[in-house]
C-alpha cells in the first residue's frame, strides 16, 4: 500500500476515546475532536493541519490508547526538536 507522505501524524481513529490529552499537549495546537462518533462511541481526535505539525511526537507519547503514529519527512523540512525522537528518551 502506498502512504501519503505528507501526513506526519496518523490517528487510528477507531481506537481513539476522545480523551483530549493529545490536544492538551500539542505545542502547535493543531489537534481537535472530530464531530463524528467512532465505533467505540467517542468523538475521535484528529489533526486539523498536517502542515503545521513539527513531528515532535508528544501527542503519540501521551496517548493512552496508542492511537497515534508520528513521522517526519525523509529529508526533514523542519527538523524535529532534538532529544524528542523515539530513541531519545
Amino acid at each position: 500500500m502506498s502512504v501519503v507522505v505528507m501526513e506526519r501524524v496518523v490517528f487510528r481513529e477507531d481506537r481513539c476515546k476522545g480523551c483530549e490529552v493529545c490536544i492538551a499537549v500539542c505545542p502547535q495546537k493543531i489537534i481537535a475532536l472530530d464531530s463524528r462518533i467512532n465505533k467505540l462511541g467517542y468523538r475521535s481526535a484528529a489533526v486539523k493541519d498536517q502542515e503545521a505539525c513539527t513531528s515532535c511526537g508528544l501527542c503519540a507519547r501521551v496517548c493512552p490508547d496508542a492511537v497515534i503514529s508520528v513521522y517526519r519527512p525523509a529529508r526533514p523540512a523542519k527538523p524535529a526538536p532534538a532529544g524528542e525522537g523515539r530513541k531519545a528518551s
Partner: protein
Amino acid sequence: MSSIVERIPVYEPPKSLSDVSSHYCPGCTHGATHRIVAEVMDELGLTDKAVGIASVGCSVLAYNYFECDMQQAAHGRAPAVATGVKRVRPELVVWTYQGDGDLASIGTNEVIHAALRGEKITVIFINNAIYGMTGGQAAPTTLIGQKTATTPFGRDKSWSGSPIHLSEMLALQEGAAFIARTSTHNPAHLGRTRAAIKRAFQTQLEGKGFSLVEILSTCPTNWGMTPVEALKWVEEQMVPVYPLGIFKDWQADGARSPAAAGAAAKSAKPAEGGK
C-alpha cells in the same frame, strides 16, 4: 504490502502491545504505561522470553494487551506468582503489573517479601491513589482529604492514617536492587518512566535482584475529572506527597549503591534509647 515510504517514523505503537482496543476509560494512564512497557519490551527484545503477571484491578485484562506470555494472578499475589514462575524458569524475564490497591493494600506482604528475598522480578506499580476497578474506594495511597466511595468526607489522617510510601520502604530491603518513583503527568515524565522501566528490566536481566517502578497515575473516572484535569492533579497534588526519584540503584555509585541507600534509610535511628 511494502511501499516506497518517504517518511521516517518518529513514533509508532510498539509491537509488544497487542493490536486491540483496551477497556480502559478515556485518558486513563494505564494505557500510556502499557504502551511504555511494551516499548521497553520491544527495545530489549523481551517479548519472546517474558512472562507478565496481570493483577486484579483495572489492569486485570493486561493479559489481553501484551504479546508476551501472561498469567493472571489473585488480588495482591502477583509477586508470589512471579516468584513461582521465576524460580522454576530463571531464564525468563518475569514482571508484574499491579495497582495500588493490589500492591499497597492486600498485597503488601507479597511485594515486601519478594523484595526481601531479592527475587529477580520487575514490578510495575500503578499508584493512582484509588481503587479504580471496584468503583473508587480509598487506597492506602489516597491523599489526605481525598473523597472516595469509602472516605465520603475525605480521607481523615486521624482515622485512616497517611498515604503509604511503599517505594521508600522497599528501598530499605537489601534484596531490592532498583526502586524508583516516576510520574505520567506529562511527556517528560513519561520519558523518565520509560527510562526507569528499562532500568528495572535491565536489573533483572543482569540478575541483580528485585526491581520496582512506582508510577503516579490517573483515574479520571473515579476522581471525577477530565483526563487533562487528572494529569494536572497528579502534578499538583500527588507529586508533592510522593517525591519522584530513584530510591535504590545497584548501578549507581556513592549514595546510590544498595548498601549506602540502605544505610541512609536506616539513619532514621539517631541514638540508643532506653533508660
